[in-house]
């Protein structure tokens, strides 16, 4: 049976003669659901007008960025305070996981609206949290340096990483990492 006349609902295993793996050629149900035939010349595409109109909607959400970052930074700050209060590594773990995800959310949010500097610090903090030892006081300084500069970036609305202030903030974090990461 060829792949094109297989029942759409059933997998149709065929032995590949070259390497013995089992191959499943299925009818393209997804394309059929868009109203096209699986093997015809018509190619599914989303019209440019729809893509452009989605782009307008995304751009309209840029005005929400400062408030949204502030909310996530507050939650991140809270997770950090809770991590520090935890008596042991095990107890700190869930708070650090939350901190990790909040840093990741800041990175995602900033990258969506091209806030390059905030994206840089969000990613740097997220990556540092992966290897943090909460009982090492030096590591606490590095996290705090990240959080402090992120607030500065937000409050001073710094978007790019090329300006003097941006360079200064990046230097602060780089020095903290260099000095205290051991």
């Amino acid at each position, binding site marked *: 049976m060829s792949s094109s006349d297989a029942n759409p609902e059933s997998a149709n295993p065929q032995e590949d003669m070259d390497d013995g793996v089992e191959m499943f050629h299925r009818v393209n149900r997804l394309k059929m659901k868009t*109203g096209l035939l699986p093997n015809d010349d018509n190619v599914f595409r989303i019209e440019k007008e729809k893509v452009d109109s989605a*782009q307008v909607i995304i751009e309209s959400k840029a005005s929400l960025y400062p408030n949204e970052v502030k909310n996530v930074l507050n939650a991140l700050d809270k997770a950090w305070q809770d991590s520090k209060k935890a008596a042991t590594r095990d107890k700190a773990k869930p708070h650090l996981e939350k901190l990790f995800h909040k840093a990741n959310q800041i990175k995602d949010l900033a990258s969506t609206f091209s806030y390059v500097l905030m994206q840089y610090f969000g990613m740097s903090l997220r990556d540092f949290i992966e290897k943090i030892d909460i009982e090492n006081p030096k590591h606490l300084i590095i996290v705090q340096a990240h959080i402090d500069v992120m607030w500065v970036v937000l409050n001073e609305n710094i978007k790019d990483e090329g300006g003097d202030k941006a360079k200064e903030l990046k230097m602060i974090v780089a020095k903290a990492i260099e000095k205290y990461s051991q």
Partner: protein
Amino acid sequence: MSKQPQVGAKKTGSLKGISVLVVEDYPFMVDMLTAMLREFGVGRIIVAENGEEAKDLIRYSFSASGNAIDMVLVDWLMPVCNGVELLQWVRGNKNEQIRFLPMVLISANTSERVVKTSRDFGANEALVKPVSPKSLSSHLAHVINHPRPFVKAPGFFGPDRRRQFREINFNDRRKTAPELVKEYHEQL
């Protein structure tokens, strides 16, 4: 006056009959993704906050009373059950319809490791953040137009990622690497 369809015009299809499950823990990003999908005309958008919730929704959608999900967009990094864990669950599922579900993994990381891991666990596509309407629309269209056959091999079940070598019956104008190098040196 209503528009008359042009004779011989190519059909482009519609997403009105498609159900997409979005698995993302961050509400702001959920809003962005669902806004894009709505503009593209996706008929049904379902949201799960994490991989565990997604498993329940997928199971239900493929039960007798459910309305089957056609495609899943899943974030890589999530608490509780992340994108890769959900992918493993889908590709290892006993339900044949669930096993073949098209999965698009969204990741902020462009590293080779992420792409390789997505491929190794059976993702149909890997979409890099930030997700723009342009990138999302082209990935959706790719999943719809170019489904790869699935492969079952020891330790792997998912779309076939092997390169396909096809005989061509016309003059091949492409240049080989040594030919390109020779041409480059000749131009110097």
